[in-house]
């Protein structure tokens, strides 16, 4: 295990694996990057739980960010506790926490052995895919707060958000699975019992037929009344909205088949088509289940409530109490600590506020706020503790009101799949053939008429169309998700295929969130000065300072004397006898720089101006080349909440036809998209933060970009891993292929239908022919859908 002692140059933290410098944070020859990591190790070491480190190398999460001591005090509030726990009796409480840090088997092992750390915990069980731990504990000896604090101590801080309150998590839709199981069981048994019908049996045993047939009727009842209910529901939903979807003709076919089979069996005139009926219901359910299989670990429904904390600290008189978010009232004074989100629009009453609005506006530089200024909800406080006077309730804040816009009430009638239109015309065609057949036989041989008419309806149901569609969708979704592109549901595929306008957010989408490109202009800096500047910058948590620290290559700060940080201006301090100041032009040089664009940091040593740093967002790898390719095929827009320092670069990259918008508020983004919709554009919005959330919902397809799919993403139609953003073009092309593949499958199924129909119109459709045609057509459709989708994906090198 002593891997860290071999090399002196790169040491890795024993707990979290981060790079660390040789310091005195060493326990038993193990190096740690910070005291937090060391503490977790010590806790585990004391209780003999170091198996945690044997299972995986450096399994922990970094503990550099300290959690405030009484952060979880709100869990002692009975009302809040009630809304979080799932079960409570005289002894035990059951609670499920979301622990985003869960990532390996060590996590699983540690979290399921919590009882060794806290005897009051009876049982803990991890759901790895959902990153949740269900904990049962004895509440006479422990409480919810202590459990949350224990988890935090060992490096798994529970994420408890506003949206967890009083809401049951949606489980898997198991109804369809049950229906599928029942249909499979009945289908297989009916098939088995139908073999004598297909192959014939000895004359003397004819009476067995009757037994088999009645048994089949018995077995088909669950299929007809239970399994096929899936299609009844959806057809009925469509009819209620005066719309015939693809399920309506399928229900018709199922009913006709079932009644004709019953008629034949009870009049002993034939054996019916119960085998084909249950078979097709089974295959269609398989398609539906595959298509609806979604990623359990992802959520596409997050709104602002998932981002907001459950409770905040309220100042009343001399004490500070914890209140639930919905109990915040106008005029309350709130205390906001470092790294906390501001839950309601408020006025700053005390403390130094440095608000990171990147969440709300996309602006990448934190802004300093003066006493008396309004701070909008959604901003994150950096630095010290501040006090705020609430001027708007949580539900009426600027950010939250974006969610309550009427535009988001989804209209169910629009965006219907082309499959429904196809099935509509198909159904009328089949009905026409059926009636013509009936009419023909009416004049030639009336005894065959009903037989022939129903046979047409049985054979030519659009079930193969449905099969082809659901299996193609399922395999496209599977290919997408193997490239870390997750769609909310199959309907998004078609919307994506229709897209003609791509709208990009800049910060966090085209560029990474962190500043990575640092350019220095001015008097040359010696290496010694470079280091000193880095040491000074490492004292501040401001993102610009972090970037400069990285640029200077300083891993660990040294001593800085007389350090001073003036929010909104800059920092100053003595490093090895040199007074260094850096920050805005006004702060460093005493004059405003008017021509300044973008993020600039000016530096002076001993009052002598040296030069400035220009910081640029770093464009994600291969994004510029992708944008260049896309300009020919789509209308592109870039809408950014940030300043326009990148305008000339983007203009040169994207050419004159692209619209570039800068300094856009979240509501402005919405308006731009609304205007595009009026001109008939089909929009795809790509964004990452809460500031894009409105635009993501407004656009036809909203794609949330994330660096880590385990992170939180705003409500959207799809989630795409940032590293795969350059594949966007291929994704859209595959989505376009969807329609072609479904049509191909449909045309082939029509060929099968023709063969079946040629028997049916003559009144010759025997159960045997139906029983052969049904599985052959279903399975070949299945192979075509899967095969063609995979071939297309291969061709697109996906």
């Amino acid at each position, binding site marked *: *295990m002593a891997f860290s002692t071999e090399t002196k140059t790169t040491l890795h933290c024993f707990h979290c694996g981060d790079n660390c410098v040789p310091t005195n944070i060493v326990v*038993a020859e*193990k190096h740690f990057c910070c005291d937090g990591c060391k503490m977790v190790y010590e806790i585990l*070491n004391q209780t*003999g739980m*170091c*198996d945690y*480190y*044997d*299972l995986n190398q450096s399994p922990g999460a970094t503990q550099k960010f300290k959690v405030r001591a009484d952060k979880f005090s709100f869990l002692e509030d009975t009302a809040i506790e009630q809304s979080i726990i799932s079960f409570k009796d005289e002894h035990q409480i059951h609670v499920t926490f979301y622990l985003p840090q869960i990532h390996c*088997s060590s996590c*699983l*092992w540690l979290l*399921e052995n919590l009882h060794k750390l806290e005897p009051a915990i009876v049982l803990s069980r*991890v*759901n*790895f*895919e*959902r990153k949740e731990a269900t904990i049962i504990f004895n509440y006479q000896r422990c409480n919810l707060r202590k459990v949350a604090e224990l988890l935090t101590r060992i490096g798994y801080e529970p994420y408890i958000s506003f949206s967890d309150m009083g809401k049951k998590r949606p*489980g*898997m839709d*198991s109804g369809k*699975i*049950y229906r599928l*199981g*029942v249909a499979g*069981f009945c289908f*297989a*048994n009916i098939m*088995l*019992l139908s073999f004598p019908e297909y192959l014939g049996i000895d004359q003397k*045993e004819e009476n*067995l037929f009757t*037994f088999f047939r009645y*048994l089949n009727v018995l077995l088909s009842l669950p299929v007809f009344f239970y399994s096929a209910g899936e299609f009844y529901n959806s057809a009925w939903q469509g009819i209620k909205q005066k719309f015939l979807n693809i399920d309506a003709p399928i229900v018709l076919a199922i009913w006709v088949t079932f009644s004709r089979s019953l008629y034949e069996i009870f009049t002993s005139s034939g054996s019916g088509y119960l085998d084909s009926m249950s078979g097709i219901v089974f295959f269609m359910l398989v398609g539906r289940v595959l298509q609806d299989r979604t990623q*359990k670990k992802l959520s596409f429904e997050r709104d602002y409530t998932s981002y907001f904390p459950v409770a905040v600290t309220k100042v009343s008189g001399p004490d500070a109490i914890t209140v639930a978010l919905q109990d915040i009232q106008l005029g309350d004074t709130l205390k906001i600590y470092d790294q906390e989100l501001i839950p309601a629009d408020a006025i700053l009453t005390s403390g130094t506020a440095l608000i990171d609005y990147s969440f709300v506006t996309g602006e990448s530089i934190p802004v300093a706020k003066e006493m008396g200024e309004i701070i909008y909800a959604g901003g994150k406080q950096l630095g010290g503790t501040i006090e705020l006077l609430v001027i708007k309730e949580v539900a009426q804040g600027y950010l939250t009101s974006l969610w309550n816009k009427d535009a988001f009430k989804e209209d169910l009638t629009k965006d219907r799949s082309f499959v429904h239109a196809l099935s509509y015309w198909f159904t009328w065609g089949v009905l026409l053939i059926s009636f013509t057949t009936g009419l023909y036989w009416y004049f030639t041989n009336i005894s065959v008429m009903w037989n022939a008419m129903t046979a047409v309806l049985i054979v030519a149901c659009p079930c193969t169309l449905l099969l082809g569609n659901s299996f193609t969708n399922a395999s496209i979704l599977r290919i997408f998700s193997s490239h870390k592109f997750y769609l909310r549901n199959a309907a998004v595929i078609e919307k994506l295929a229709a897209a003609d306008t791509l709208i990009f957010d800049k910060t966090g989408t085209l560029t990474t969130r962190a500043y990575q490109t640092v350019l220095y202009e001015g008097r040359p800096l010696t290496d010694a000065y470079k280091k000193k500047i880095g040491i000074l910058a490492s004292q501040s948590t401001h993102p610009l300072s972090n970037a400069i620290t990285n640029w200077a290559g300083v891993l660990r700060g040294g001593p800085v004397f007389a350090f001073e940080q003036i929010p909104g201006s800059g920092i100053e301090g003595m490093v090895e006898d040199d007074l260094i100041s850096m920050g805005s032009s006004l702060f460093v040089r005493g004059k405003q720089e008017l021509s300044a664009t973008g993020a600039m940091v000016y530096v002076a040593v001993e009052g002598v101006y040296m030069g400035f740093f220009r910081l640029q967002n770093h464009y994600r790898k291969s994004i510029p080349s992708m944008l260049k390719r896309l300009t020919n095929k789509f209308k592109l827009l870039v809408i950014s909440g940030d300043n326009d320092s990148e305008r000339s670069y983007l203009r040169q990259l994207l050419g004159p036809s692209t619209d570039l918008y800068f300094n856009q508020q979240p509501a402005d983004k919405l308006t731009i998209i609304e205007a595009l919709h009026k001109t008939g554009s089909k929009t795809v919005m790509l964004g990452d933060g809460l500031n894009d959330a409105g635009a993501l919902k407004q656009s036809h397809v909203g794609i949330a970009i994330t660096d880590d799919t385990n992170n939180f993403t705003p409500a959207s139609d799809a989630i795409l891993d940032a590293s795969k953003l350059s594949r966007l073009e291929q994704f859209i092309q595959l989505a376009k292929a969807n329609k072609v593949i479904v049509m191909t499958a449909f045309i082939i199924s029509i060929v099968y239908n023709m063969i079946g129909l040629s028997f049916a119109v003559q009144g010759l459709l025997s159960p045997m022919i139906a029983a052969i045609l049904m599985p052959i057509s279903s399975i070949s459709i299945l192979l075509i859908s899967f095969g063609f989708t995979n071939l297309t994906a291969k061709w697109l090198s996906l």
Partner: protein
Amino acid sequence: MSVIILLLIASISVASLFLAAFIWSVKSGQYDDEMSPPMRMLLDDTTTQKKH
């Protein structure tokens, strides 16, 4: 021929058992989390203290 009928009843009952087992497995949440059980079975429940 009653033997065939008996056999049929037996085979359908066995199949029903499997159906019941399937429904039970879905209901008990076996398919909710397909990742933890394979990891869990490889973890030893050791109580011995290891020195690091």
